[in-house]
């Protein structure tokens, strides 16, 4: 029998583990003990906080304290580790390893092994709070929703719906993420975004435009099959620690491991080869490798003939990157680059892994495409052990991206075109004209004409034009409104699960936060947002429940969906995000439309299962249609039946399915598609999870065929390339009559993306074909600023000698509604005043903006101070010793006060800072600005305060991996 541990009250009634060090604390076991005593001890109950007392009384009724096992998924990174909770009387009392999970096999990193602390929640935001006269005051939910709603409606009246910004979160589960995007749409704006913009937006854009889908092609587990593993800008040992279980297993199976990074990371410590590049020189390094591959004929010629378009243009660019030029630009000696190229060529299949080190650049989209081209040239995509294993960041950033919390698209990457809105309006059951009316349709008649009567910027219909991205919300507030392609500036911001310290340009951010009429934080923690601005009024903090206090599905990096149980009830006065969305929609007057197909329970909580079913009815593009709540719940109960390398269930109730039904899981749930474990893998039939490259870019370009040649997935009846499926194509093929009568009615005039019956997909797959067609991957993207990925020096570069040859872009007047500067910034030479390159990255103990993890004492103890890594040479040059306080000043003048950590982990001339800290500004601890008892244990300067301007030319990804700085003793 499971033993429960109960303890008597210690004599003074306060067994407080952290007392004296951290102030008063109540741990969960203490709380449990008190609840069990509350039956007979009124005196004890008196010691509890009011909220806990209510919970205590509720718990007391359920005497006995049987231990229940409930299962969830870690809420930190995207590996998707299973979490097993022991719950007694509604209290999370123990955490056990989830040995059944094929993703982590019980393993956890520091963050995952400490998630039970969420059930303590000592430093959580406990009640709705309002800033009044510079002080935080507790308010009721009703009061908060009413006041916020009135203000938002007032702003809408004065400035239009685009002046309210809905910043969502990768911490939402899928259902909340989808609901949030829909919420913004029904409010009438595309000013909605989330963390994906600043983590992998350049990946999604670059990769999707290369071969169809912008996601990790294989899986962590599939790395067991790799013969070579190439990491560039990825520090898996700290950012995805449990992935290292699979990576090191792959290595033990004989794979060669290469790490490319400006830092000698903990991942590099396990590599066979490490190459230290100058930050921002990924394209030259990759082209430098391809130089050798092409020169020696190591490319996979047959694969390229069948499946790759435009590689000849790449060859011309690659020819420029001789070993000498690569060394001049990257700093990596020629023989090392050749060795890496040879290793990749001789050890196939090989996989490439990249993360923020590659994506967060002004040329991030060029980097991601160059990585893809390397893999295409080697014939490594669409094979087990190969692929582009793009490790996503947050636990559900893949899902939140798929479900479209993005300013430039609707759920499922449908885009913002008329037809896209029409598709979703049909799924939502709302009238398209009503929906159009929600947007600022009058804007084009009233704005954009200056004194001379000419338009300053091109007009765009706010419904069909990409909104302001999260990286640029600051400019949405501060930029002259005449330069913004919408009626007015941003007036109110919702930070709904988003830390502002993940965005650059601290001083301007502070100013923007002070300029906004209203700031609303919806989060389990107050976050850096609550303390950064000097405000007296107009700020609200609403306590959101964590994902352990609600339930729903979550998508791991490998596109697998997992179901989370609710472990415990929401703590204190917190509410699940979808409940808050309902309350807000009701106040704003569109709850009926928002929840037309979704049951709302009496406690204002929308039914998660209904939301997922609506997702299933609309997400045809990427196959989020087969993962019904029932199928996901069945998998949750049968995790142990899945193979830990292939992810295939062998026998049992899920026989033949892949774990998590990785998307695309085609057709309706009834079609029982098993999911697609490896994208573009032609060795399996589409019905069994096989695929080929997507026909996304037409059938020909410049007179050349874009469709695949002599390559098709196993069992395809069309044994060559073919375009994407539509009703007309079915008719031409003579397959139309394979549809049922109902399907015919729904499919008429539609295509595989818009046929709500799923019939077109079903019939295509029945004939062995991929619904999205069968084309070549394209090595060149003619719709991007750089058709061929090329190197461009960072805006703030220390290598002025390279600027002429590798200049950045021209300034742009209107990119995502905002002027975006490139050349005018690069033109200023800051390299003598700011001689050091500044880069940033992760620590294993913390996650994202870090508020949640820095509020967890088990983690906070391990990293107590914000620091910067400095090479001994640079430290000695500036008279800095290990452990000294230093001022680090970014090239735009913003400075942070941090501890110096002298280490050769960074190269000479490069300084590194972790980005998880917050709660300090300009050398000062902002502890007194937090609501009482809700400050994280560890606070420090936000690294991004010192980071500078710079945004990707396609996605507005912020540049946080390469700028300039100087350091001095504080």
């Amino acid at each position, binding site marked *: 029998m*499971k*033993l429960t*541990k*109960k*303890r*008597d009250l210690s004599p003074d009634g306060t*067994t407080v*583990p*952290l007392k004296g*060090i*951290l102030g008063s604390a109540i*741990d969960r*076991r203490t709380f449990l003990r008190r609840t069990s005593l509350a039956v007979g001890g009124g005196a004890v109950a008196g010691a509890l906080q009011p909220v806990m007392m209510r919970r205590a009384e509720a718990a007391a009724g359920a005497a006995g304290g049987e231990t229940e096992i409930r299962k969830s998924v870690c809420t930190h990174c995207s590996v998707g580790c299973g979490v097993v909770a022991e719950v007694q009387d509604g209290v999370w009392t*123990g*955490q*056990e*390893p989830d*040995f059944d999970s094929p993703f*982590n*096999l*019980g*393993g*956890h*990193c*520091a*963050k*995952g*092994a*400490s998630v*039970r*602390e969420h059930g303590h929640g000592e430093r959580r935001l406990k009640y709705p709070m309002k800033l009044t006269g510079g002080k935080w005051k507790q308010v009721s939910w009703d009061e908060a929703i009413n006041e916020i709603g009135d203000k938002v409606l007032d702003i809408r009246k004065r400035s239009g719906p685009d002046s309210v910004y809905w910043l969502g979160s990768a911490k939402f589960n899928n259902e909340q993420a989808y609901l949030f995007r829909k919420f913004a749409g029904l409010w009438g704006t595309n000013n909605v975004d989330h963390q994906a913009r600043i983590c992998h937006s350049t990946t999604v854009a670059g990769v999707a435009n290369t071969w169809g889908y912008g996601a990790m092609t294989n899986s962590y587990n599939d790395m067991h099959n790799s013969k070579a593993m190439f990491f560039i800008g990825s520090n898996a*040992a*700290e950012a995805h*620690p*449990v992935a*290292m*279980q699979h990576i*090191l297993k792959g290595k*033990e*199976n004989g794979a060669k491991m290469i790490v490319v990074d400006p830092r*000698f990371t*903990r*991942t590099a*410590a*396990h590599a066979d080869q*490490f190459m230290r590049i100058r930050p921002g020189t990924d394209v030259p390094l990759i082209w430098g490798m391809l130089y050798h591959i092409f020169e020696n004929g190591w490319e996979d010629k047959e694969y390229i003939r069948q499946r790759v378009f435009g590689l000849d243009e790449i060859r011309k660019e690659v020819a420029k990157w001789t070993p000498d030029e690569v060394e001049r630009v990257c700093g990596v000696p020629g023989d090392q680059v050749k060795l890496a190229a040879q290793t990749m060529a001789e050890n196939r299949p090989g996989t490439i892994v990249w993360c923020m080190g590659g994506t967060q650049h002004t040329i991030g989209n060029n980097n991601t495409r160059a990585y893809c081209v390397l893999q295409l040239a080697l014939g490594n995509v669409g094979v087990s052990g190969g692929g582009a294993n793009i490790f996503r960041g947050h636990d559900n950033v893949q899902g939140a991206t798929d479900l479209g919390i993005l300013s430039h698209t609707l759920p499922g990457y449908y885009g913002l075109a008329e037809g896209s809105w029409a598709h979703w309006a049909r799924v939502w059951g709302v009238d398209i004209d009503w929906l159009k009316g929600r947007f600022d349709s009058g804007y084009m008649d009233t704005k954009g004409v200056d004194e001379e009567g000419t338009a300053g910027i091109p007009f765009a219909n706010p419904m069909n034009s990409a909104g302001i991205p999260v990286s640029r919300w600051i400019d949405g507030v501060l930029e002259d409104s005449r330069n913004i392609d919408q009626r007015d500036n941003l007036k109110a911001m919702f930070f709904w699960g988003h830390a502002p310290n993940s965005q650059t340009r601290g001083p301007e951010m502070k100013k923007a936060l002070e300029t906004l009429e209203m700031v609303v934080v919806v989060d389990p923690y107050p976050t850096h947002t609550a303390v950064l601005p000097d405000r007296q009024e107009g700020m609200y903090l609403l306590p959101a429940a964590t994902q352990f206090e609600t339930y729903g599905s979550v998508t791991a990096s490998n596109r697998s969906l997992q179901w989370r149980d609710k472990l415990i009830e929401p703590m204190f006065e917190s509410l699940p995000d979808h409940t808050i969305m309902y309350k807000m929609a009701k106040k704003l007057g569109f709850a009926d439309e928002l929840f037309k197909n979704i049951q709302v329970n009496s406690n204002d909580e929308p039914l998660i299962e209904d939301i997922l079913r609506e997702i299933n009815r609309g997400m045809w593009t990427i196959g989020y249609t087969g993962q019904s709540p029932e199928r996901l719940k069945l998998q949750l109960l049968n995790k142990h039946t899945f193979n830990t390398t292939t992810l295939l269930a062998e026998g049992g109730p899920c026989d033949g399915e892949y774990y998590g039904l990785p998307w695309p899981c085609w057709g309706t749930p009834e079609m029982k598609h098993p999911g697609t474990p490896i994208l573009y893998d032609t060795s399996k039939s589409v019905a069994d999870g096989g695929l080929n490259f997507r026909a996304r870019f037409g059938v020909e370009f410049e007179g050349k065929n874009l469709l695949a040649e002599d390559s098709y997935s196993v069992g395809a009846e069309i044994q060559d390339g073919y375009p994407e499926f539509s009703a007309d194509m079915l008719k031409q093929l003579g397959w139309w009559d394979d549809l049922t009568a109902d399907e015919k009615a729904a499919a008429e005039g539609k295509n595989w993306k818009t046929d709500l019956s799923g019939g077109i997909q079903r019939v295509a797959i029945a004939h062995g074909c991929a619904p999205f067609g069968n084309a070549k991957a394209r090595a060149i993207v003619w719709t991007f600023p750089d058709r061929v990925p090329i190197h461009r020096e960072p805006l703030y570069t220390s290598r002025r000698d390279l600027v002429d040859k590798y200049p950045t872009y021209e300034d742009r007047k209107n990119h995502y509604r905002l002027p975006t500067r490139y050349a005018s910034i690069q033109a200023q030479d800051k390299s003598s005043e700011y001689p050091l390159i500044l880069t940033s990255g992760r620590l*294993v*103990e913390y996650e994202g903006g870090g508020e949640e993890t820095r509020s967890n*004492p*088990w*983690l906070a*103890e*391990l990293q107590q101070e914000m620091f910067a*890594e400095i090479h001994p040479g640079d430290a000695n040059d500036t008279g800095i010793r290990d452990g000294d306080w230093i001022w680090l000043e970014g090239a735009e003048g913003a400075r942070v006060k941090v501890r110096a950590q002298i*280490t*050769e*982990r960074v190269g000479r001339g490069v300084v590194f800072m972790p980005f998880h800290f917050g709660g300090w500004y300009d050398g000062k601890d902002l502890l007194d600005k937090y609501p009482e008892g809700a400050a994280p244990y560890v606070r420090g300067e936000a690294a991004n305060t010192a980071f500078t301007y710079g945004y990707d030319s396609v996605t507005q990804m912020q540049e946080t991996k390469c700028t300039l700085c100087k350091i001095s003793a504080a």
Partner: protein
Amino acid sequence: MARMKFLCDAERCIECNGCVTACKNEHEVPWGVNRRRVVTLDDGVPGERSISVACMHCSDAPCAAVCPVDCFYTTDDGIVLHDKDLCIGCGYCFYACPFGAPQYPQKEAFGVRGKMDKCTFCAGGPEEDGSQAEFEKYGRNRISEGKLPLCAEMCSTKALLGGDGDMVADIYRERVLKRSSRPQTWGWGVAYKADS
């Protein structure tokens, strides 16, 4: 009879500190007391290796040999435990231990040390198994529940192995053979003697 052992595979340890927070989670030890820590050698330069360190439950434990009040005892499973009711906090065990395992509560800078605290291999202490007194003094007793130490069970990369020494050795031997390289263990020879 099984002998319980820890082994940290330095080729797999990535210094993620999962073992450290798993221990804190399970035993709710206070801030400042770390029954398990991860030590990194050659930090930031080629050759960097990390190892997770706690009490190694030595075959012939030096802590027990030097303890003036004889508070240590070894269980039938080979787990080295101590009795906090006897412990006087003298700190001799700290000097004797080759692994720096003994921990002391940080009450004041120059005051008397509190009772020594260390890894119990998740086996509690002399109090009744699973009792509340045992939990307060020594933490949770997983061994009596038929479970192994949480740090090893939760290790992100399966670097830290804990359990029956024969099984640990088998798992590790298989890995070393697969890698076809020299073993890179840490602590095994010192704690358990080379031939045990």
